């Protein structure tokens, strides 16, 4: 990576590797994602896309290499430390607070960013800013009518929307979305694409996605991950035209795009 890239990049990976036992899952990934870009990571199952997200967000430590957020090294930080620095992620398998209401889910997601930390001297009901921010997000993800419902009782599509809501509520400027449309119908998918476009406006977005329709619709640039290595990075039309990608992967792209 050039020095210029590391200054401007919102998220930068340099020589990132990860092994589980003797198996190397991520085999040296270099990636620089400039501020404000919508970046999609595609690749066949088992390519290491979710693992890469887990390394970036601090769920697992990287075996080697460096990960920088806005130029700052976050490689060895814990998930909550990375989150406090302005990176937030969603999960492929819905990861919400099941027994809390939808509104409480969102309020929990904004408390730290508003500076309430571990306070036991503020009354939640008195925190107008937290309530307002949670209600804004509630409105944005279209769940206002479900405000008081326990999150565990929502439909799958509603839970996925809440998942995105929790991810963006804290105001992070780098957003990682792990398969936001997985398991959704066509109309639900269109809805989510619209939602993602709206709530991540002006932010840096990195997403893992299998639905090629969604990828080519949303992404400014695409990286193709195959066997833990970046095969190619470029604009959607470049990726379509890339010979190596065609050889390794494009059949699937056409297939997916066709039935998508």
């Amino acid at each position: 990576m050039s020095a210029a890239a590391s200054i401007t990049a919102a998220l930068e990976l340099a020589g990132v590797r990860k092994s589980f036992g003797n198996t190397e899952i991520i085999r040296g990934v270099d990636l620089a994602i400039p501020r404000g870009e919508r970046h999609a990571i595609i690749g066949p199952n088992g390519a290491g896309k979710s693992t890469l997200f887990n390394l970036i967000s601090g769920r697992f430590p990287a075996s080697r290499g460096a990960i920088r957020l806005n130029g700052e090294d976050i490689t060895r930080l814990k998930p909550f430390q990375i989150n406090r620095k302005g990176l937030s992620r969603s999960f492929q398998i819905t990861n919400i607070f099941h027994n809390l209401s939808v509104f409480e889910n969102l309020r929990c997601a904004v408390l730290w960013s508003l500076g309430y930390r571990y306070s036991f001297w503020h009354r939640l009901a008195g925190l107008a800013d937290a309530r307002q921010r949670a209600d804004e997000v509630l409105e944005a993800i279209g769940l206002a009518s479900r405000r008081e419902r326990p999150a565990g009782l929502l439909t799958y599509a509603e839970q996925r929307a809440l998942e995105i809501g929790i991810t963006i509520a804290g105001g992070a400027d780098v957003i990682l979305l792990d398969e936001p449309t997985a398991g959704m119908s066509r109309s639900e998918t269109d809805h989510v694409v619209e939602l993602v476009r709206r709530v991540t406006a002006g932010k840096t977005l990195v997403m893992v996605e299998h639905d090629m329709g969604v990828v080519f619709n949303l992404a400014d640039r695409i990286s193709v991950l195959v066997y833990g290595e970046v095969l190619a990075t470029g604009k959607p039309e470049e990726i379509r035209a890339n010979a190596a990608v065609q050889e390794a992967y494009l059949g699937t792209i056409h297939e997916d795009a066709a039935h998508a």
Partner: protein
Amino acid sequence: MRYQPINLGRWLIWGATALLMAVLPLIFTQGFAITLLSQMGIAIIFTLSYNMLLGQSGMLSFGHAVYSGLGAYIAVHVLNLASKGQVWMPLSLLPLVGGLAGAFFGVLFGYVTTKRAGTTFAMITLGIGELVFSCSLMFPEFFGGEGGITTNRVFGQPFLGLTFGPGVQVYYLIALWCLASMAAMYAWSHTPLGRMANAVRDNPERAEFVGYDTHKVRWFTLIISAFFAGIAGALACINFEIVTAENVSAIRSGGVLFAAFIGGVTFFFGPIIGACLFVYFVVALSDHTKAWLLYLGLFFMLMVMFAPGGIASLIVMQLPVIARGRFRSLLPHYARTGAAGLLVLAALVLTVEMTYKVSVDSANGTAMTLLGVDFDAAGTLPWALAGVLWIVGGWLFRRAWLRLSHAWGEIQAEIAGARA
């Protein structure tokens, strides 16, 4: 900005609670009733503090008596120093000393126990409980050995005419601290830390990804919980004027788990009910029968099997039925099931008490009294009666239960239909 409409319902409930606590000793004036009420007040604080961990934060502790017990020990030493005039400490503020002591040990032990949640947490609390209990035998200067540390709560000049000698004065001291602690713990459950404790209970991983260090959330919660446990410990020290190793024992820790579970851990008021029932079982029932532990164990088993949400959930289950106006139609079913249940209970009590008399207590003869009726436990007639009660009661109960379940199911379907 901060304007909140006054929550009338909440004020009514708290007002009624305060009123109830104030008038109860005027209605039940016997010494025994005052003792019972005092112990209930202490148990309410202790059980609510325990439920901050179990119900609110998902931490199953097997060593909560460590904090109440050590709080009690520090309190008893401070009380003894105060009565010698070596430190200034009015009796009414002693619970604060116990609370701070509890919180101090919460800082110390909690840092280790809260590093992990789930089974690991439970195991470490068990270990620390055993550790502190074994210390109580190793350091007799502090723990008083097998005899414990005794004290006298009456010292110095009366404060506003209060000597705290009579039990009823101690009751009101306990009641005041109990009310304040209940209010404070309720308030805690509506703070950022309280809500994040719920979040960490539900999904610790997600809590980390919205910026929270789950270890700190659990640790700070435990410190506050230990503070209230310490208050309960100091009040127990004032009430009994003795603190023994039993105060830090696994029996105490298990008891509070019992109480919280019976009452119901998912609702704030559940442990209050559980604490009162538990104290009633332990104090009142143990006066009447040697088999009280057996009854307590059976009751606990029935609760776990048939009402895992505790008594609080049984009450809350009725609310939608009442709102729908169908509670009245269930009442005859409840009455029939209850009456049949009483027959089964009578059969159980008769069998258990006669068995105890014959097998454990037969040295003084087999004549016994139950509910004012004298009879011979070795005779055939009482056993035959027990058998009949079992059969008739069991049959009636089964019938009533099936009809109750049927009626309940119909009403639930009706409510679900109205919602859809």
